[in-house]
Each structure stands twice: as structure tokens, then as C-alpha cells.
């Protein structure tokens, strides 16, 4: 099948408005007859379900957590970008578009990114109207800060809890639609298959995680808003329950998977402390606004950070990238930290960490405050305390979180940080309308591949999730459903539902009947180790080939020796987890295959074979200027389809932040 991205004709900045002006509409009476399934209730899912409910569609929403408010969007800290230009610092839709395409290392689809930048401003308006309490200045207007990969201040925030506030806004809109009867909510439910009839997505098989019973649900269309798959690495900043299962089942039913190897390793996370570690915690990128990153200039310097004089510190980001300094994009900052640690300059007990230091920022803010209060030559302690208050207001919850985890006070001693898996730019391949290669099956938010290329800029995930849910899907879905108004609800005793449910229950039975010796967790940890070592921050042909064969062996071992206690028809977290890990193992193999195929470095994907003399990522536009969309054609078998990327506006060049 040839891939058609369905990009509208015309000038880049007119495409979306032209599309909206000509798109097919569904009249209100017909909307009431059309049913839509939404899987996942994070920013993309909650905003989509709420907006479609408002339009009058009959929506069913599903989440595996006990409430839609728990989705992992809630943990996003730093902020959300929008081209409002409230700061009068030269921002515009074009600049946000340009920064995102460049930040993504020229592996994103221009038309999608332009639309994202266009709708970004309406998102902020919508959230404020919902009562989202963004940070404000004394004049009562909204405050902004900067994020990596940009030279303007376009990030809106609510302390270090922006994701929480945005999600609660979308959640409240969703709850309102539930109370009005437009949305039916299924919490503690997990989607375990997509049902297709005559080639179109017509529903899902879900499992009630409290009773263990499988259920059939019909929908004229199915929207997957199920997030990313960073947990394939076992250790990541994702929530424990975040998984690829919904997207993977869709993939097995015909949806192509786009750029699966594009993973974002976030530079500022709390380092691993030991084998017991179950997850990693992010320290928001916003901290790089004010914090300075450094390591000692001498190898193996074991002095306490406060005992290392200024002259003996290497602020390596400021040294290597003077134009952007500590605010280089995430992929660049992560590789630079790895490089210093690999060379033996790392700090802390494991030596796999660098310092993120707030001393200078605290003193700088302190001086401003002292001068505001008319203090003449205040002593250092007074300045420090004044500055500490400012930093506390901006980042207080992050500093507290750091202290809870490490037991160290980051106001007094610099934080130790190291890169960790955070986000996946890859995902289900979608066209301009967010439709996958299966008609009627859509993917929104992190679950799709579309907007961030090979590296996502900070504060852009929240923007994309809400753009897709509030402002894109309500238009594009109508274009599909307008042709479906004559299709009445298909009863769920249809053979296709029966077959799909049988497939699901057979698999559950098969898992339960293995009755082996090793725990699900132990398999997940081993998979994570392979992925981190060979498909993490640096990848090579040799390592990837080895990883593929290790994963194939692990898969066999899993299906012959995993131990799952309890029964199917009850609350059984181990069974839930086993299904997810089984899917992660298959995905891991595909990620390595994709990474092996892409013999270039771009964004977060760093092939050791493809680097510049000074160790920067070297793209190969001649051979790899495409989206790799993988079709599953059998057990461990995939076929590659290419979507060529044409850059009409932003001409690809070697990305430089120097």
C-alpha cells in the first residue's frame, strides 16, 4: 500500500484554514447517531472525548487507571508552548513552526507542524477559560519562560505542575460531558484489541481490570490516545502503567508504526541509585533556564562540589554551545552529559551524573530582590535568602521532589542529574487527518509519530496532545464520519467481534497456562537492559544486531517460563503487566530493526557510525529523508514503507546550536 499523507494543497500557512473551509461536515442530528471510542484519557484523549461530546457525538472513553484524572500527562512539569508573542520578543507562528522542524532535526512533516503552531494560541485561550491557573505577573497577565531549542520566551506554565493543571482542565471538561450523558466513561479498563470489519475499525475488545471480564464495544471510529512507549526501557520517567499495548494491537491489525526508534532521552533526571530502582524522575527542563550544568575539569575529582573552585569547573554546555548554552535541545544536552561521564568526569557515587547548579541563579535573583527593596550592599546570606525565595516560587515543587528522593537539599548543594528515557517521538503512522493506515482508526498525542521528528522540543508534548484533541480531530474525524452516516450501530455479536474476543481470551489463557518460574518484572528488567545498552543514547550496527537476537531469545523464554499468579477473572495486576511486557518485547525488536535500518544520526537517534568530527549527530538527507513506516506481516516480520519528507519552507541544514 502506498502511503498517502493527504497533505492539503496550497501555501503552507493556508493549508489548515483551507482544509477547515472545505472539510465535510456532519449535521447535529447525525452526530447523535455516531459512536466514537476514545482509548486513553491524557491530554489528547480527555480533550478529544470532551470536544467530541460537546459536538454531540456518542463517546465512550477508556482508561486503565482508577480515574481519567490519573493519566500520565499529569506528571508533565515545565510548560506548554504557544506562539502568543505576549513578550514582544519576536515570536510568531512561523518561528514556532521553524523551531519545531529544526528541533526535530528535519524528520517531521512540515504541514502537521505548521498546523500545530497555528492552533497553539487557541489552546492557551481555551485552558484559561476552563480555569487553568497559569502563572501570572503582578499586572495580572500571563507569565512566560524559555525552554530548550528556542531563543524566545513562549512557554506558559503553572509552577512545575503544568501538565497537572492542563490535564485537570481537560478532565473537568470530560467530566462535564459525562454528567451530560454525552460521554460514557470506563475506568480500570484496558483495550486489548481493535475490531475491524470490511477493513474499517469498528470497535475494541476491552478488559475490565477489576473483574477480569472481556467486553465488546462498537464504535464508528476508534481513537487511540494511549501515550508513548518509553517503558520498553523498563526505567523511564513514564508512569508504571504507561504501555504500548493499545498501539501495538492496532499495529498488529494493520496500522503502520512510524519511526519506532525515535526516543527522547531527557538530560535532566535524577540518576539511578541501585538495582531496586523502579522508575526515574525528571527534573524539568525549565530548570535549565536558570541552572548551570557542570562537571569538574579534573578526571575523578572526588571533592564535594562546594570545594571545587570556579576555575576548576567545566560548564561544558556553555563551552561547547555558546549561542544556546544550557538551553540546547534535549538530544544535544543528553549526549554531552554522556560524553563527559564516559570520559571519566562524572560525579556522585556511581560517577554517572553531572551537576545542575543553582547557586548563581539564586544570587542573581537575590541581588534583583535586594535592589527592589532598596537594600544597600546586603551581605551574601541576605542575598542568598532573597534569591532562594524567588527560585522557590518558580521551581519549589521540583526542588522538594529532589530532596525527597535523594535526601539532599538542592538549594545548598547542586543537584546530580543524568539523562533518562522520557518520551517517544515514534508512534503509529498517521496522515494529516491523524488517521492511521486502518480507516476509522486514529492516533492522537504521543501515540502518533507526527510532529516532533527525531527530537521533541521541551513544552511541545502538552501542546501537541491538546492540539490534536481540542482542535484537530473534531474537524478531521467529521470528514470521515460524514461518509458513514448511513452505517447504523453494528451489534457486537457480529462474527468479527466474536473472533477478536476469542483471540484476546486465548492469549490470556495461554499466558496463565505457562506457569513458569520467572516473574514478569524480571523479564521487563532484562528487556530494558538490552534496550538501554544497545538502542539507547548511542546505537551501532553490531550492538543492534546483537540486541535483536537477544530479544528474540528473551521472547521465547518469556512465553515458556513466565509465572503469573492468580486467575483471569479477577483483579490481577501481574496478568495485566504480563500482557504489556509481552507487547514491549515485540516492540523492542522492531525498534532495533528501525534503528539498524536508519544508518544516519538525527535528533535523539545517534548512530555511532554517523557523526561529525566533533562528535555531533550527522544526518544523511540523501538516503534517509523519510519516515520509516513499518507494516507487520508476520511473527517478527516487518515490511518497510517510506514516506518521503518534502521540505518546502525550512530547508534542512546541519543543525547548529553553537
Amino acid at each position: 500500500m502506498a502511503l498517502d499523507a493527504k497533505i492539503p494543497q496550497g501555501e503552507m500557512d493556508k493549508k489548515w484554514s483551507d482544509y477547515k473551509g472545505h472539510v465535510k461536515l456532519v449535521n447535529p442530528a447525525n452526530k447523535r447517531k455516531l459512536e466514537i471510542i476514545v482509548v486513553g484519557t491524557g491530554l489528547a484523549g480527555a480533550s478529544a472525548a470532551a470536544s467530541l461530546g460537546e459536538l454531540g457525538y456518542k463517546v465512550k472513553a477508556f482508561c486503565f487507571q482508577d480515574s481519567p484524572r490519573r493519566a500520565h500527562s499529569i506528571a508533565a512539569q515545565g510548560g506548554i508552548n504557544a506562539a502568543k508573542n505576549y513578550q514582544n520578543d519576536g515570536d510568531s507562528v512561523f518561528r514556532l513552526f521553524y523551531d519545531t522542524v529544526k528541533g526535530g532535526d528535519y524528520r517531521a512533516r512540515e504541514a502537521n507542524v505548521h498546523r500545530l503552531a497555528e492552533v497553539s494560541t487557541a489552546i492557551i485561550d481555551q485552558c484559561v477559560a476552563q480555569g487553568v491557573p497559569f502563572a501570572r505577573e503582578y499586572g495580572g497577565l500571563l507569565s512566560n519562560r524559555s525552554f530548550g531549542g528556542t531563543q524566545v520566551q513562549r512557554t506558559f506554565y503553572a509552577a512545575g505542575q503544568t501538565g497537572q493543571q492542563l490535564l485537570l482542565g481537560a478532565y473537568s471538561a470530560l467530566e462535564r460531558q459525562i454528567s451530560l450523558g454525552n460521554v460514557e466513561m470506563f475506568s480500570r479498563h484496558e483495550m486489548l484489541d481493535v475490531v475491524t470489519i470490511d477493513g474499517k475499525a469498528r470497535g475494541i475488545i476491552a478488559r475490565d481490570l477489576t473483574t477480569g471480564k472481556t467486553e465488546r464495544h462498537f464504535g464508528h471510529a476508534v481513537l487511540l490516545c494511549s501515550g508513548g512507549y518509553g517503558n520498553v526501557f523498563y526505567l523511564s520517567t513514564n508512569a508504571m502503567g504507561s504501555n504500548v499495548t493499545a498501539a501495538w494491537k492496532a499495529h498488529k491489525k494493520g496500522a503502520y508504526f512510524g519511526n519506532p526508534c525515535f526516543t527522547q532521552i531527557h538530560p535532566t533526571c535524577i540518576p539511578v541509585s541501585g538495582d531496586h530502582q523502579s522508575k526515574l524522575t525528571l527534573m524539568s527542563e525549565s530548570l535549565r533556564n536558570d541552572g548551570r550544568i557542570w562537571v569538574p575539569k579534573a578526571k575523578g575529582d572526588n571533592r564535594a562540589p562546594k570545594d571545587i573552585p570556579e576555575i576548576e569547573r567545566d560548564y561544558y554546555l556553555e563551552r561547547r554551545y555558546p549561542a544556546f548554552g544550557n538551553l540546547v535541545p534535549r538530544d544535544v544536552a543528553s549526549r554531552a552529559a554522556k560524553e563527559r561521564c564516559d570520559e571519566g568526569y562524572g560525579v556522585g557515587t556511581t560517577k554517572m551524573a553531572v551537576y545542575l547548579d543553582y547557586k548563581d541563579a539564586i544570587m542573581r535573583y537575590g541581588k534583583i530582590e535586594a535592589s527592589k527593596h532598596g537594600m544597600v550592599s546586603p551581605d551574601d546570606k541576605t542575598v542568598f535568602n532573597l534569591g532562594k525565595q524567588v527560585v522557590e516560587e518558580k521551581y519549589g515543587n521540583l526542588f522538594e521532589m529532589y530532596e525527597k528522593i535523594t535526601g539532599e537539599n538542592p538549594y545548598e548543594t547542586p543537584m546530580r542529574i543524568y539523562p533518562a528515557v522520557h518520551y517517544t517521538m515514534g508512534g503509529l503512522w498517521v496522515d494529516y487527518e491523524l488517521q492511521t493506515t486502518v480507516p476509522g482508526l486514529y492516533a492522537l498525542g504521543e501515540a502518533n509519530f507526527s510532529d516532533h521528528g527525531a527530537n521533541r522540543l521541551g513544552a511541545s508534548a502538552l501542546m501537541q496532545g491538546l492540539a490534536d484533541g481540542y482542535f484537530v480531530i473534531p474537524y478531521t474525524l467529521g470528514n470521515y464520519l460524514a461518509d458513514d452516516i448511513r452505517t447504523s450501530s453494528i451489534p457486537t455479536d457480529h462474527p468479527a467481534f466474536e473472533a477478536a474476543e476469542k483471540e484476546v481470551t486465548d492469549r490470556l489463557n495461554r499466558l496463565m497456562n505457562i506457569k513458569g518460574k520467572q516473574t514478569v518484572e524480571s523479564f521487563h528488567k532484562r528487556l530494558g537492559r538490552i534496550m538501554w545498552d544497545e538502542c539507547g543514547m548511542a546505537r551501532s550496527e553490531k550492538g543492534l544486531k546483537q540486541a535483536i537476537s537477544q530479544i528474540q531469545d528473551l521472547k521465547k523464554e518469556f512465553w515458556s517460563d513466565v509465572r503469573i499468579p492468580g486467575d483471569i477473572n479477577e483483579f490481577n495486576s501481574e496478568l495485566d503487566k504480563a500482557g504489556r511486557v509481552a507487547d514491549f518485547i515485540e516492540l523492542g525488536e522492531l525498534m532495533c530493526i528501525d534503528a539498524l535500518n536508519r544508518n544516519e544520526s538525527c535528533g535523539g537517534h545517534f548512530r555511532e557510525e554517523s557523526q561529525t568530527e566533533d562528535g555531533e549527530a550527522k544526518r544523511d538527507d540523501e538516503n534517509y529523508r523519510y519516515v520509516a513506516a513499518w507494516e507487520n506481516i508476520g511473527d517478527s516480520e516487518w515490511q518497510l514503507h517510506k514516506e518521503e519528507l518534502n521540505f518546502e519552507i525550512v530547508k534542512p541544514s546541519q543543525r547548529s546550536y553553537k
Partner: protein
Amino acid sequence: MEHYHMNLTLKVWRQKNNQSKGNFETYQVKNISSEMSFLEMFDVLNEQLIVEGKEPIAFDHDCREGICGMCSMYINGQAHGPWQQNTTCQLHMRAFKDGDTIVVEPWRSTAFPVVKDLVVNRSSFDRIIQAGGYISVNTGNAVDANAIPIDKKDADDAFMAAACIGCGACVATCKNGSAMLFVGAKVSQLALLPQGGPERESRVLNMVAQMDKEGFGNCTNTYACEAECPKGISVANIARLNSEYLKAGLSSEEA
């Protein structure tokens, strides 16, 4: 920071499902690192149970960074354990010492029935939000975000109230099983913002009515909720809830 290892005795509430009667079971865990989180210690215990052929303990958890509100353990008689302004997932084992006995129970409240072991059903909170915890603004209706300036103090206070993670510790810790802090936080957030104005009265009346219907108790001002709240939500929000409720009640009677 000095790290150490410890052996512990755990007494954990086990309950097969909503219908069955539960009981405490005692477990030993060994060689627990002070650097582990409390839930990582539970991971160790569960792995041990699975290897021994027993059923692991069911507990709710997801983000493990103190923001999703899913984790919910009553530890040694305190919601989320001994640390102040902290969730179970952020509690670390350096809070305990070698030889300690730790008692772990689920949230206990009429409005939060036990699902299994330490897992409870908190959907009553969602239904309270459904009753009015929102501003009725359909997608696309909004004016420019800077069209309405908001006093920074009101915006900050609204944010402090909105920081509630909906975990239910306030209810679990209250001798009356009251949800006034949870409801007060949402009512306050929206009452402090001009956008919340038009529905101010109906919101508070409907949310309180739903709260009563769900079987939550009354507030008798012991402030245990504030003391145990992982996000430090202030009881001033309960005072605001009371005043909003009173005002709304008066004006609705006039009408």
C-alpha cells in the same frame, strides 16, 4: 547521605474482593536499602511472594512521582506514612530503621469501598466533579487568554487549591470520612477566578449535594485533612467552601 540496609516486619491488610472479609497478614522483608522508595520495598515483597507461589499484594500506584494521586496506603496509622506533605510513592525507606514493624492498610471510608487488598474505589470523587467541578466552556468558545487580567494573588491562591491530586488522603484520615477539603479545593479554585463566576452558586450547591449523597461525613474542624494532605491544601479552602455555600443558599432562597 549515609545509606544503610534493614530487615522489616510488615503487617498488611489482605482482602480478596469487595464481598470478602479481610485480615492482616505478616511478612518479613530483608536487606531493604534506605535509598528505596516505599513502593519499591513493596515491589521486593511482591516479587518474593510470586516466587514463593503466593499471590502478590494489590496496591494502586502509577506515576511514582507524587502527582497522579493513585497511590494510597495508610502506613502506621497515617495516610501516606510519616513524612509531611508527601505521597506514599515518594516516601523513602530512610524514614525507617532496621527491625521496624510497619502496618499497612487501605484508605478506610464508606465512600471508598475496598476493591482488593490495598486498592479502593474512589469514583465518588469523579462524581463530585461531574456535579459541578468545571467551567462550562465548550472548545472554541474562549476569548484571548490575556483579555481578563487576574490579580496575581487570586491566581496564586487558585493554583494552590488546584494542586489537589485527588488521592483521598483527606477522607481517609478524617474521623468523619469527610471530603470537605477535596470539595473545598475545587470550589475555591473556580470561585477565585473570574471565569468561574457565572456558575459559582449552582456549582457549590451541586457539589455539596453530591458529596452528601456519596456518603462522605461532615467536617468538625479537626484539620487532620490539612495535616495529612500531600500537597498541603489549606483548610482555608473549607472556610471558603462554607462561605460560598452559605451565600449560594441565601441567594437561591431569594430566587
